[in-house]
């Protein structure tokens, strides 16, 4: 389930970071107005718990065993928002310190395992255990929630990998990142999850929730109720908004002279007058007349100047900061 670095384009990684930022922000607010100190240990230990869950092998028929992700257990125990933060912490730590999952893919991995699994699992569980369910219905609801959540997350991973050949191909059309189209990536992710990993997640979630029900009745009440519709809508909008970065073509409003001419048949006089008035210190990263190796050399010089300017800015900022 952890996507390593190199499978997703930087554009996709940026989209998922942008999508997760408002989720993380709102989740921290939601957990308790600004992630107060009281909740810090709970979230940290929730994240640590997800590590431990992944270490446990659950025996399955045939003498084999498999491990679960555990997001649904955490979200049922702590609530979906706390689950999002705990799982995101776990994903971040896994990427940086344990080399599990990519550093640039933290946003995407958090979206799949923290956001989708927590919410899909938690609300599936709540929907299936509406009213006053008996023990058996709660356990069945937990199993269904585990199965649904892990399969939805797998579907998301399949889609994320499958769109790469379309949105991030090289100039010659060859895929630069995950190479398989949706027609292959989705079945490749879904079949093992539907047949093997999903049932393991369902079994593990059901068994753990069964013990939680028996031994931690009151603690389970930590799970929070449904979120306010307005905030839900805002979060959904915030999640969807950066998807525009995936769009091809010129961004809306950033058209050049020729594009405007093609669209409306004339170039507004103001645009005609001011377009190109400021070309930057190194227009198009170098000398337009240079070609071939010359152009590359000019580009390298531009990169060196840019790097030097950035390091100088860091140096000056550091000096100012230390005063």
């Amino acid at each position: 389930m952890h996507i390593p670095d190199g499978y997703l384009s930087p554009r996709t990684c940026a989209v998922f970071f942008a999508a997760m930022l408002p989720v993380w922000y709102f989740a921290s607010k939601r957990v308790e107005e600004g992630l107060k100190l009281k909740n810090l240990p709970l979230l940290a230990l929730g994240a640590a718990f997800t590590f431990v869950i992944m270490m446990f092998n659950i025996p399955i028929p045939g003498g084999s065993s498999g491990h679960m992700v555990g997001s649904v257990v955490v979200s049922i125990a702590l609530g979906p928002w706390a689950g999002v933060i705990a799982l995101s912490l776990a994903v971040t730590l896994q990427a940086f310190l344990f080399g599990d999952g990519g550093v640039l893919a933290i946003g995407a991995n958090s979206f799949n395992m923290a956001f989708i699994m927590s919410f899909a699992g938690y609300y599936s569980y709540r929907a299936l255990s509406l009213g006053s369910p008996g023990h058996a219905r709660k356990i069945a609801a937990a199993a269904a929630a585990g199965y649904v959540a892990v399969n939805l997350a797998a579907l998301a991973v399949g889609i994320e990998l499958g769109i790469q050949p379309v949105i991030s191909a090289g100039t010659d059309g060859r895929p630069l990142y995950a190479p398989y189209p949706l027609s292959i990536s989705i079945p490749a992710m879904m079949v093992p999850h539907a047949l093997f990993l999903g049932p393991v997640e369902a079994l593990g979630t059901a068994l753990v929730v069964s013990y939680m029900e028996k031994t931690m009745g009151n603690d389970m009440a930590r799970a929070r109720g449904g979120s306010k519709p307005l905030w839900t809508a805002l979060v959904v909008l915030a999640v969807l908004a950066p998807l525009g970065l995936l769009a091809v073509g010129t961004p809306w409003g950033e058209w050049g002279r020729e594009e405007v001419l093609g669209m409306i048949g004339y170039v507004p006089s103001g645009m005609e007058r001011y377009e190109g008035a400021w070309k930057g210190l190194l227009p198009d990263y170098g000398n337009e007349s240079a070609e071939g190796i010359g152009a590359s050399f000019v580009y390298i010089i531009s990169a060196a100047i840019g790097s030097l300017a950035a390091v100088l800015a860091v140096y000056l900022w550091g000096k100012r900061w230390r005063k």
Partner: protein
Amino acid sequence: MAEVRLPDWLKESRGEPCLIGKGGSHGFLDKTLANISAFMRETLSSGAAERPGALQGLSPKARIAGFLLLIIACSITGRAFMLIGALVIMAVAMLMSNVSAASLAKRVAPSLFFTSVIAFPVFFDFITPGASVFGVSVSGYSISVTKEGAAIALFLVLRVGVMVALASLLLLTTRQADFFKGLKELKVPHLFVTALYMTFRYVFVLLKTAEDAVLARKSRTIATGRLSEAQRWTASRIALILKKSMSYAEEVNMAMISRGFDGRLRTLKAPGMEGRDYLWLFLTLFFLFLSFGF
């Protein structure tokens, strides 16, 4: 002397003696123990991070920022020579930092193997049509490796290998305490850094609890049990660890309050960045800017 009689229940046969690690419903105990010990071994051995070296001598924030820039550059570029350039930078950095190629290879190998398996079908014409390099034909069915397929697959393996190797080199040359210090100095929100640090700290506490539970079960096991019983036991341990996590959270919270902890991770004040830090940042930024064009 009174005759000692065995109770009937002790005379009952309960299947074959358990052969731990030989499969059956008890193989899961060994697998769980193996997972935990591998995790502990990898994370608690500081390795090259304690040795003197060029990367270890950089300030944590410059080191983390530089490696992030290199990883981003490798993600952006569409040219193999840029990735090979990153490999060269990495090889030089390794030599100057006393990091053995074997320790790096050990970390990169799983991802590389996984990616190679995924990329393998891309070589062939049924996934990537193109100019055939060589092929075989058996009873009317033919399959061939295409030039385009080979280029795509090898490029993916190279990119993933280089990016994972960069992240691994950062890991190998950075002590865990330095990592959190670096994040703090890079102005990552302090609550996030503190939560990450606490997660890291309590992973080991919970893992020790899990290890004790599995070892206790293994030491008491004399016969192969039923599958459902083994499943119930595993679930009960997971639930117990969750319960312990929540009670630890309460205790940690009270301990934090009683000690006046304000949620900020306190570390020794790091010295300012030096010339070598700026040079490292310049080189990595330069590489990043190059990747925009190549």
